[in-house]
Every structure is written in C-alpha cells, then in structure tokens.
C-alpha cells in the first residue's frame, strides 16, 4: 500500500513526534509513504475566514501536485484540519464546475491542474479500512491491559463529511485502541471541540472547552488523539487549569503496544507526560503508579 503523504505544517514543527510515530507505525504495517513534493500550507482553519477561494486553492494546490507527481495513490493526511481542508476540495469541487474552474484558474499560475481524481484519507480511515483490525492486532507485543485510555477523536476529522465514522459518536479510534489491548475510558467527549481556533483569539472561551474535556478524562491514564491542534491545546494549558493527564498521539501509543520504547516513540517530546508515565511503559507496572501525579518534569 502506497500513500502520497501530506504531513502538514504542524507535523514539521510542534508535532514532530506525530510525524515520526506515524511513519514508524505505517512502515511496520507495510504502508509506504511518499512525500508530496513542495507541499504547502493547506489553509488551516484561518484562511477560510479571509478568503474561501484562497482556502480552496491552497488545499487544491497540494492535491494537484499529488495527482501529477504521485498518480493513482491516495493522499494520507494525519492532521485533522489538513484532512478536512483537502477533503473539502475532493467533496465540493467536482460537483461545482464554476468553483472548479476558478480554483484551476488560480492554480494555473503554477501550471497546476486539479482534476478531482485523488482520494484524501485520514490516518484513522487508513488504519481501519486498508490495514484492518486483524493486522493491527497481530503486531501487539506489550501487555497494556493496565492502561485506561480516553479516545479523543476531535471534530474536524469527523465533520462535516461523514466518511468513515459517525460524526458524533465515533467508534474507530476506540476500536483501534482496544485492538492495542488497552481499556477504553467511557466518556461522551470523544468528538467534542477542543476550541483550538479560539485559543489564539478568545482564550477564556477556548479554555472552557479544554477544561470540560480534561475533566471528563479524569480517571483515565491518558488521552489519545489524532490531531496536532487537539494535542497541543489539551496539553498546553493543563497547568493553568490545574488538571493533569498525559496526551499521546495514537501512533505513539501503537508504537508502545508494538514493543518500541517510549524514548523511541518520542514520548518525551509531548509536553504533558510525567516521567512516571514513561517509566510505567514497561510490562507489568500498574497504571495507578502514574495516575494523578503532579507534573513529573
């Protein structure tokens, strides 16, 4: 299985551990990632508030490059915001000829054409539907049955397009986690917005979103997510809110389950992980040992 890989800007900066762990896990699962050459910003959530045409063109530019340089394979985008922006192009442009034409007119300044042939996939979709639970489970090496994990899917990977999971009651992340052998924390916050875009403009309101998620996650040993925005938001303000819980990327936890060390999976690059949690990542240590400790570093 080959994919045209779109890491997105965050995975090159504050979420390098997500990029790295995705590559490690995909390689182990025989997924070959090919970088889309000269990919650029997808527009994030901000550009649509300035210009819809620009937002669509930025995303379409990356798909047009993928179609040209890596024809016939799906695009894989681990970041939920990137995924939504790229997916929106796939969903909206082919059914609106006028929009398609105006975007392609903009792309013509780079001699690029978006034809609508490429399919955009999120990491969760690829893991569930291309790799499958059987193969996901076959690689598990370490017993993580002492660990209880809150699966946090976030919003933009599920909404507004219903592609591979329920937009309000997502199941896929929890199913993958169970396949890794961990317990799943029962909660209703898996698809609740973390307020990401508000933390730059309206801090107090964004913090309420973060607080409600961190509170609901109490009792779990960690939160696992698939979005660099969610991960950063949920970790960065834990001190301010007085609520502590490690927040890992899904492939980091998968790597641990697959027997890699926490060092190798770069758990020390996350902001919220106490050293007690890292030490616990050897078989046989109980989850209570690292629960509810103050910040360990």
């Amino acid at each position, binding site marked *: 299985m080959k994919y045209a890989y779109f890491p997105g*800007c*965050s995975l*090159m*900066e*504050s979420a390098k551990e997500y990029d790295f762990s995705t590559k490690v896990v995909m390689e182990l699962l025989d997924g070959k990632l090919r970088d889309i050459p*000269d990919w*650029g*910003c997808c527009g*994030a*959530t*901000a*550009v*649509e*508030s*300035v*210009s*819809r*045409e*620009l937002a669509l*063109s*930025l995303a379409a*530019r990356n798909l047009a490059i993928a179609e040209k340089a890596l024809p016939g394979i799906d695009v894989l985008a681990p970041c939920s915001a990137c995924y939504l922006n790229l997916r929106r192009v796939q969903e909206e442009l082919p059914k609106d000829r006028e929009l398609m034409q105006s975007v392609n*007119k*903009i*792309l013509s*300044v*780079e001699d690029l054409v978006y034809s609508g042939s490429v399919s955009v996939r999120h990491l969760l979709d690829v893991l569930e539907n291309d790799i499958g639970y059987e193969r996901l489970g076959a690689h598990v090496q370490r017993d993580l049955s002492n660990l209880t994990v809150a699966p946090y899917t976030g*919003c*933009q990977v599920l*909404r*507004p397009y*219903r592609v591979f999971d329920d*937009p*309000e009651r997502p199941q896929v992340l929890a199913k993958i986690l169970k396949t890794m052998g961990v317990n799943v924390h029962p909660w209703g916050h898996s698809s*609740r*917005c973390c*307020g*990401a*875009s*508000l933390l*730059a*403009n*309206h*801090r*107090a*309101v*964004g913090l*309420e*979103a973060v607080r*409600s998620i961190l509170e609901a996650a109490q009792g779990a040993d960690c939160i696992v997510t698939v979005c660099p925005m969610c991960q950063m938001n949920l970790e*960065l*303000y834990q*001190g*301010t809110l007085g609520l502590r819980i490690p927040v890992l990327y899904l492939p980091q936890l998968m790597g641990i389950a697959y027997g890699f060390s926490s060092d190798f999976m770069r758990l020390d*690059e996350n*902001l919220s992980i106490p050293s007690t949690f890292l030490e616990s990542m050897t078989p046989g240590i109980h989850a209570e040992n690292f629960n509810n400790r103050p910040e360990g570093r």
Partner: protein
Amino acid sequence: MHASTETLSIREAPALAKVREMVMGCMQCGTCSASCPNAFAMDYTPRQLWRLLLLGQEQEVLGSKTIYLCSSCYTCTVRCPRGLPLTEAMHALKRLAWERLPQTRSRAAFYQAFVEHIRIYGRVQESALMARYFAKSRDPRLPLSFTAAGLRLLRKGKLHVPDASHKGMLKRVVDAAMPKEGRT
C-alpha cells in the same frame, strides 16, 4: 473601498444575499444553539443570529461577537434538521464583517496574520506566525498572555527560528486568489 455600514454597496450585496440564502430554510428550532459548545459566551446564539440575518439586521449580525466565537467544530452543521451549511455561513459572515465593518477588524487579526504569514513562508512557522499576530493585534497584553505556554514550548524545543526553505512558495497562489486590497 468600504461601503457605508448603513447600506449595501452593489459589490457586496450578492455576498450577503448568498449567506442569507444559506440560512433561508431555518425553522428556528434551536438545535444549533443547543449544540454549540461556545454558545454560552456568544452575544447572540446561532439561532438568533440566523433570525437577525433573515430580518435584515446586518449591522447586528456583522458586529456580533458570535461570529468570532465559532470554533468551526461543525456540530451545528451536522445536527441542523434542515441540513443548512451553518459553519460555512459563519465563515462567510467573518469575511463580510471584514469588508463592511472596518471597526471590527481587530477581531480578525489572527486570520489576517495567518494569510500574510503563509504568503511569505509557504508553510506555517509557528513562532513567526505568533509574532506576526502579536504585532497585528497591537494589544501589548496579548504576548504576555502567551508567556507561560511559550516557555513550556521553548523548553521542549518546540519553538524554532523560522525555516526559510519554502519562502515564497505560495506567493503566486495567494496573489492570484486575492486582490492586494483584500490582504491589507
């Protein structure tokens, strides 16, 4: 280039009409407001906003804090029983507020900083983006409010000197998509 805030200019009328059309089917059931995680902080709930828009109260709508408190979570969009593209309407209203209510522009500082930033760097360079945002907001308290978070990121080596290797990569596309004036 800015229309009076009292009347619609010929150029802006179709854009506003388009947003009105998006919410025309609203039956005021309140599902969107009840679903919105940020409604508690809004001056008008989403349902009220659509009502005002349909009643022609553009001033109220474009001047409201509501449109900036939408975090683009799409919960209202997937739940609206009429299937209306509500999150998209929020984005369209932000764009219109920028055009029609210059006095509210500081609220859009982050979005504007973002576009200027990627026009230069091609990819988001997080530290440089925040610096640009702070400069644009002209609010001296803003950088301070990020100090604690910034220090944590710094300690983890997550703040970088901007990587200039993709400089200018998106300039042509940004300039082709947006007339100079729209970029400020």
